[in-house]
């Protein structure tokens, strides 16, 4: 801080904040406004396939091409804001009415939230013992164990989901193993069912749960557990009364890191879930198969509204324990 209070440094400060700020405003914030605008437009058979509502995006008059982007985006934002109430009055909520009236969409949202919720709980149930055991492992093993948890997180998501196809298929390795052991006589039907989606989500997101849990658990003062044992508490009591409550920040961070992206998950239900209805898949097919861009945008806006609560909570409580930090 002290380094940036000198008058000569004011410009450096502006650039350091300004460049990433403008970038994110342009490529993270503005895109949401554009989705919002499109969700209130009508689909057409033109190219691009919609009838725009609200202010048009300013054309490039300077001839600077892509370099003029930040300026045009600002101009665009301005025209939204100055349009004010007149613009709001002209909006068309037809797409949202459509979403509310068709049970397909409502079911897809509900199903996604349910699948993400159950998967989050399952991930926690598997991840917690693993994180706890890691903190109890000998000191010199811990960096290696950490690396072993991180490695799958760095490995392609797509490949890890794909790996399960060969295991879960009717003639896959799991069924072969179980049948040759005589445990089942008919192949289990897991592939292309919601069960496979649960397995896929738990497997893919497990590192996101374990890392923040490990971060909080490893900072737990062992003296607390010793004191509790000295006072006669059984290990299980100490766990319920001390370890679990103190690891709550890690539990929250991990759960948000799993729940929020899992709700909009596309790859896992697409590859493993068969007909399993999830909103990410609905959005994808509205966009790519039905070419209904405005409806796909409305699906995205509603999904975002559902997730705003968890995202704000994640930023407030989870981010400090963020696995990456």
């Amino acid at each position: 801080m002290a380094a940036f209070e000198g008058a000569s440094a004011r410009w450096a400060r502006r650039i350091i904040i300004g460049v990433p700020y403008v970038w994110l405003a342009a490529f993270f914030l503005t895109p949401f406004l554009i989705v919002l605008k499109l969700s209130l437009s009508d689909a057409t058979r033109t190219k691009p396939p919609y009838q725009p509502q609200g202010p048009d995006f300013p054309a490039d008059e300077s001839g600077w091409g892509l370099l003029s982007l930040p300026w045009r985006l600002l101009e665009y934002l301005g025209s939204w804001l100055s349009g004010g109430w007149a613009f709001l009055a002209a909006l068309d909520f037809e797409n949202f009415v459509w979403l509310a009236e068709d049970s397909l969409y409502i079911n897809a949202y509900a199903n996604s939230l349910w699948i993400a919720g159950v998967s989050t709980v399952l991930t926690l149930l598997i991840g917690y013992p693993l994180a706890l055991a890691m903190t109890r492992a000998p000191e010199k093993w811990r960096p290696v164990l950490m690396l072993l948890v991180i490695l799958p997180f760095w490995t392609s998501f797509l490949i890890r989901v794909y790996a399960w196809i060969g295991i879960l298929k009717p003639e896959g390795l799991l069924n072969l193993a179980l049948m040759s052991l005589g445990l089942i006589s008919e192949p289990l039907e897991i592939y292309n069912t919601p069960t496979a989606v649960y397995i896929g989500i738990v497997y893919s997101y497990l590192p996101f749960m374990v890392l923040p849990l490990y971060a909080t658990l490893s900072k737990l003062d062992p003296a607390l557990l010793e004191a509790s044992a000295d006072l006669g508490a059984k290990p299980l009591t100490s766990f319920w009364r001390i370890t679990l409550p103190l690891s709550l920040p890690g539990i929250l961070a991990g759960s948000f890191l799993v729940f929020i992206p899992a709700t909009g998950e596309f790859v896992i239900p697409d590859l493993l879930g068969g007909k399993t209805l999830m909103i990410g898949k609905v959005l994808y097919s509205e966009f790519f198969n039905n070419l209904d861009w405005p409806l796909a945008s409305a699906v995205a806006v509603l999904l975002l509204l559902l997730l705003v609560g968890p995202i704000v909570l994640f930023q407030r409580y989870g981010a400090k324990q963020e696995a990456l930090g």
Partner: protein
Amino acid sequence: MNKQMGWFSWIALGLGFTFLYLPIFILVLYSFNDSKLVTVWGGWTLRWYGELFANDGLMNAARVTLIVAVIASTLATVLGTLAGFALARLGRFKGRTLFSGMILAPLVMPEVITGLSLLLTFVALSVDRGFLTLILAHATFSMCYVAVVVQSRLAGFDLSVEEAAMDLGAKPATVFFRITLPLILPAVVAGWLLSFTLSLDDLVIANFVSGPGSTTLPIKIWSQVRLGVSPEINALSTILIGLVALGAVAASYVQKRRGWGQEA
């Protein structure tokens, strides 16, 4: 807590890591399987690797993916380092809450939303889909990861070294390049590697923003995988897993024993 690990810890570690690694292990094993039927073991072979390198479509996609990943992760590292520095060292500034919100939200944002919104933006700007849009999209979500890694590295250092340099008359720019940058360099390198793998891995966003001439490897893999398991894809996956494992080991080596959950 105790020096001795109980049976509970052994079981948790054993089952946990088996669950994490068995599917990957099976995938790698079957990439050496000399049988068209993916679940029948037919002896060892390297032929799928041979067919892989003879597959022009896949090789072309691999080239696109690598070019995009290198440029996007470099861009993301510059932007993310600035952002991480701003959050950790510049104290309060106007719009800081919005700024840190925009850094954290992409970490959990469902990919279909990010992909759709970026594509619609590019269409509104009438920028053609292709290399450029892929690079812009990947740089945007990767920079947030870089920012978080750099910020936490900076938060781990006290200001006294920088202040001492200032007291001795060093200009802010000198302080940054001579003191701060060397301190955060491990985080910057790790951020670049992380961005690189994120870009290499991205399917959903790439599906939205890539054009006909810029099909990436994940898109190619995905379209083949939807038709079922293939030994060629197993071989490709094995190569990618090997590369990523190397990268991750390298990154954790640079990070030494700091970062990645050791500080939060």
